[in-house]
């Protein structure tokens, strides 16, 4: 493939940790190319020392999430031609400490996931028959609307309140809490709800909707959090 200047992309990649700088690379522009393809090409052909995460590379695992031109996205699902022209800027996901280059530390994200009361607890054991859950019950529909989350962290990285308030559990954790309080099998609904309504919980959300705009799976934590807010009134007057 002809590789004159017009067929090259300029890519600025974050190097280092929280302290660091952007390094520029030039990569051939190809007809079908995702941001993950570009990162992979840099690491394989230009700088083997570049650190980044990926797994499935086909848009189902969420591992390749990074900040591309200022927005958190799955890089395997971001076609180069979908970006506005000019240099492409790639950094790790925001609101999380940077470990190295394009990898961020998601420990805090998973901690908050736990702190939102998201341990599923069932009254049944493997000896019991499976629970019969009507998929059309209103409760199950609510849970199903939120259930597809794969913890990719994109919403967490996109949330302004997460950035401004380090106590805030974040959209992913609260979205999961919502799906659990609507799960008829979950025996610790009260615990989950208490966690979701606490100081780091749903009352911090200002419904800006960055999370739902960014979610690659099309979920709406804004909606789930609104559901939790409604439940807070019931919780206050003593109904669970």
């Amino acid at each position: 493939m002809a590789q004159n200047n017009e067929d090259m992309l300029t890519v600025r990649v974050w190097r280092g940790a929280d302290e660091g700088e952007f390094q520029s690379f030039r990569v051939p522009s190809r007809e079908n190319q995702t941001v993950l393809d570009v990162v992979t090409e840099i690491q394989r052909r230009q700088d083997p020392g570049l650190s980044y995460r990926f797994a499935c590379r086909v848009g189902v695992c969420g591992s390749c999430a990074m900040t591309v031109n200022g927005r958190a996205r799955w890089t395997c699902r971001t076609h180069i031609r979908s970006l506005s022209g000019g240099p492409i800027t790639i950094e790790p996901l925001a609101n999380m400490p940077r470990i190295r280059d394009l990898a961020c530390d998601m420990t805090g994200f998973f901690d908050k996931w736990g702190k939102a009361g998201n341990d599923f607890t069932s009254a049944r054991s493997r000896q019991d028959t499976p629970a019969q859950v009507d998929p059309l019950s209103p409760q199950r529909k609510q849970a199903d609307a939120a259930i597809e989350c794969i913890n990719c962290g994109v919403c967490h990285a996109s949330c302004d309140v997460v950035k401004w308030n380090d106590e805030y559990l974040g959209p992913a954790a609260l979205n999961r809490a919502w799906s659990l309080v609507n799960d008829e099998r979950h025996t610790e609904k009260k615990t989950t709800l208490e966690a979701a309504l606490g100081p780091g919980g749903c009352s911090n959300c200002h419904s800006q909707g960055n999370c739902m705009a960014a979610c690659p799976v099309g979920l709406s934590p804004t909606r789930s959090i609104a559901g939790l807010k409604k439940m807070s009134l019931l919780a206050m007057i003593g109904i669970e």
Partner: protein
Amino acid sequence: MIRRTDTPRQTAGYIAFALHRLSGLALAVFLPFHFLVLGLAIEGEARLNEVLTWTEQPLVKFAEWGLVVLLTLHLILGVRVLLLEWAPWQGHLRSGWISGGIILALLTGAGFILGVM
């Protein structure tokens, strides 16, 4: 203000949030002055009139216009938040309320100007 290179800029939801918060902040700052001026009625009509005459200045009238616009905007964007949180979810962020709110706020401001002139 706040460096935001990593959140979607200028989504409707963010604009609504920013306008709502900033208008609320301006009103909150104004409020103590409002209460103190009204409290001058304790010292009699003449004293209150002194201050009210001072407010006839164009710059003060402009500030009053601003407060009327911001109060209307804060009200409408606040109703939007109440709907987002308490009304049935509609699958979107009711962004029609944002432009509607701005228009109504400016119209109310126009009503103020007409009254003042």
